[in-house]
């Protein structure tokens, strides 16, 4: 391994430590805001927003998705599409209930 490779890995390890502290702060934040007794919809939105941000940090930095090959992005785009379909099923069910009545 060349010296520049080693330097880039060392740079990455500093990023890993940074992300670790960010994730710790966000975990404490998630728990803290849950004690605010916000309206349900707002509480769900805030909790999912923080979780999504934490998840993106893990995916982008620890899982190296910030610099990955195209084929992996295509696999993941397809996964996201089907994931959205899955998550839409409960709303479809609610919509169906309303039209039946």
């Amino acid at each position, binding site marked *: 391994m060349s010296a520049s490779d080693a330097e880039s890995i060392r740079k990455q390890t500093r990023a890993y430590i940074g*992300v*670790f502290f960010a994730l710790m702060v966000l975990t404490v934040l998630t728990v803290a805001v849950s004690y605010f007794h916000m309206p349900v919809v707002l509480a769900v939105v805030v909790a999912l927003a923080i*979780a999504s941000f*934490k998840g993106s940090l893990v995916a982008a930095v620890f899982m190296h998705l910030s610099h990955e090959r*195209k084929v992996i992005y295509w*696999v993941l785009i397809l996964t996201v599409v089907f994931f959205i379909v899955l998550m839409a099923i*409960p709303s479809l069910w609610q919509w169906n209930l309303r039209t039946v009545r």
Partner: protein
Amino acid sequence: MDIPYNVEPRPDTGLYNAKLGIWLFLASEVMLFGALFSSYVLLRTGAPAGTWHHGREFLNVPLATLNTIILIASSVTMVMSWASLKLNDFKKFRLYLGVTFLCGVGFLAIKAIEYSTKFHHGYFPKSNTFLAIYFTLTGLHVLHVIGGMIVNGYFAGPGAKMWRTEPERFTNRIEVAGLYWHFVDLVWIFLFPTLYLL
């Protein structure tokens, strides 16, 4: 016969085969957990008003917060173990992967305390719909943690001898094991607020 493209990238994908393989597997895992998350939303939004039990009634938030911290820490040590191999530091690799494994043990121990407290109080999956989906989701997640620990334990122990014969291939194996482990962490990042806090 040698397995092709376990070190050098395949010309059409630009990746070694195991990396594409693990991502395809993780895509199927997103569907598995996604289906259960979707079921949770459906059960919760479909429950008659006032009948839904909330996690806070049964669950221990401080213990789960500690478990979140443990799992995030284990993700960092996992990626550091891979980086150590990239820097040719086998000793540090073993240390970091060992810590990752111990974090897994810690996570399981806390989960066992949580589960046994619930059983002790007579809370079982059959008790109510919340507990049914709680035990299903966390139980499946625990199985994933155990699976990851078996792989990590193997690579920290007997599997590490590959480092002497095929170091690049071994480094790739650790990257793939790490991608799986980070996914398990990622799932928990969503399970924790949705089950314990909302």
